């Protein structure tokens, strides 16, 4: 079943992937302006996706949520098939039935995506249990991505408790992007709540700068080593920021401009560019070339998606039952 890509080997690859994610999502924003279905973009959170996914192996599984483009692309999903899915076309990963909100790509080990906040957390322990009971490739683990808002749902604790109690090979990855749709995190939970709550369950918890791809990778690799060794879960809180609205379109009128400025100044892509420049691994020309290449690949993807056929109405009830 598995044909997941090899782990992107270098910081430069991670920059490339982040550029691709951003270009892909910017394209979706443009499409939405022209009437395509809206999406939840992950602009500003790309380092979380590339950092964690870089630490995973092909035998591992990912369970994710509504804000999943980064996880999918970092895992090797083709932008053209993602875009076709968002547009509801047959060549999408789910034949157009999902749209943007619940894209799974089983061939990449991205399974059971749910747009019900907390749905990802409810299913991930079962995927991990199956790994543990011998259903995946030996030693495989599961990474579940969810938001700070999801931590407010009771299922967050039920999943943590089960994972700890049953010693499941499960990495909890909370992308704390400060916002829960139209409500700021601090309006719904105490500061530091996520890490404190997780610690109450007695598993290893680390809070990391989620806008630093290399820091995320390092923390994820460390947590995953713990999981593979002991067969028991671990928890990462990635502190990051949702730079765009909750869903396209969303004018973010409810966000303080200073907050946006603060976080835009900490953009994960800029950060990676600066790091690579400082290390002499890229220069302005190289960056421009990369960006151009990314744009081109997105343009190709778009053409593919837009010409992909609509699913036939006769297929409406296909795949309801196995």
């Amino acid at each position, binding site marked *: 079943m598995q044909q997941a890509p090899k782990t992107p080997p270098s910081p430069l690859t991670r920059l490339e992937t982040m550029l691709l994610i951003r270009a892909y999502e910017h394209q979706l924003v443009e499409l939405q302006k022209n009437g395509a279905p809206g999406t939840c973009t992950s602009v500003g959170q790309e380092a979380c996706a590339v950092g964690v996914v870089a630490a995973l192996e092909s035998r591992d599984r990912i369970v994710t949520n509504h804000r999943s483009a980064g996880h999918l692309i970092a895992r090797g999903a083709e932008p053209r098939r993602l875009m076709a899915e968002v547009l509801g076309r047959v060549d999408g990963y789910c034949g157009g039935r999902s749209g943007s*909100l619940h894209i799974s790509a089983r061939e990449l080990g991205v399974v059971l995506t749910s747009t019900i906040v907390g749905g990802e957390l409810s299913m991930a322990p079962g995927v991990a249990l199956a790994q543990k009971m011998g259903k995946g490739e030996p030693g495989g683990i599961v990474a579940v991505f969810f938001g700070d808002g999801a931590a407010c749902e009771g299922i967050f604790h039920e999943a943590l408790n089960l994972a700890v109690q049953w010693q499941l090979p499960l990495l909890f990855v909370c992308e704390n992007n400060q916002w829960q749709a139209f409500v700021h995190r601090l309006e719904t939970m105490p500061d530091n709540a996520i890490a404190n709550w997780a610690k109450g369950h007695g598993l290893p918890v680390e809070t990391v700068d989620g806008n630093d791809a290399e820091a995320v990778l390092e923390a994820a690799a460390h947590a995953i080593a713990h999981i593979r060794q002991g067969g028991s879960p671990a928890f990462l809180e990635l502190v990051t920021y949702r730079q765009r609205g909750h869903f396209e379109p969303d004018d973010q009128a409810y966000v303080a401009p200073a907050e946006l400025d603060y976080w835009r100044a900490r953009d994960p892509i800029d950060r990676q560019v600066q790091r690579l420049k400082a290390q002499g691994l890229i220069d302005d020309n190289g960056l421009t070339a990369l960006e151009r290449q990314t744009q081109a690949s997105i343009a190709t993807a778009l053409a593919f998606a837009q010409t992909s056929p609509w699913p036939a109405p006769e297929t409406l009830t296909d795949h309801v039952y196995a």
Partner: protein
Amino acid sequence: MSTMIQMTAAQAINLALREEMRRDPDVFLMGEGSATKHRDLVDAFGPDRVRNTPLAEAIIAGTAVGAAASGLRPVIDLLFAPFMTYAMDALVNSAGKLRYLSGGQFRFPLVAMGMTGTGWCVGAQHNHNIEAMFVHTPGVKVVMPSEPADFKGLLKAAIRDDNPVLFFIDLGLLCQEGEVTEDPDFIIPLGKAAIRRSGDDITLVSYAKTVAVCLQAARQLAERGISAEVVDLRSLKPLDENTVLDSVRKTGRLMVVHEASGLCGIAAELAALVSTKAFPSLRGPVVRLTGPDAPIPSSWALEQAVVPQPERVVNATLELLGAAHSVN
């Protein structure tokens, strides 16, 4: 008489909330983003009465139940109907049962709002017409309006009702405009259907945005000399049995049209109602035109295939009239 103004269903909801909050200090609103979304209500009534909640539907609904039993009149916004699955214990086991199980010690005047329906290509985890589940649930009421005036009048009635009311909002109607009275005393009583068009040959029953589909079909049928009566249920529970039965006793034929899937749905209930209580009047089989027994797909092409279209209503009517004639 008070003036009529043109507004969208979304504005009608806001107006209903504003009027009821002004009328009764016990009414308050909470939900994930309620204060963000209704900034004007926060300004008017203060942050205690318009609350953003944590992202946790079970405790939102449970808190509403506890507050309602203690003398407040909460309105909760659960956003999309499928998210109510997290709130089912509070809605079904607490709000629906604890008055009864306590021998009438408590009242639960609360309103739970949820959006659903096709039109936004959001897929089955946002778009799932689960109103029938709550019609099947004892102790609660269920409404689902079809036009701005009803959004206002029914929401106000729901807020004033002493029982838990599920208020379903068909997405496709939110931006639609209509005439709404400014009269703050105007309500639409729960349990009263509306005859949107009179006719003699067939009764088309529907609710929410599918009422417009039936009206369109009725106009097309009129061109062929067929006179269809269109009933808008408005309240799904209590159901206005008499309006439906009277209509079918007149027309002799019933077709129920809705987007929700058919099995154990509203159309099933009406078919049963009529075939038990108006059987002698029936001049042909009851017809159900409903969404399929399938989750709702996101793809526009497939989502449209879910929606009962006027043509289907027209064709099914023509077929029924033919069949009915051959049967009688």
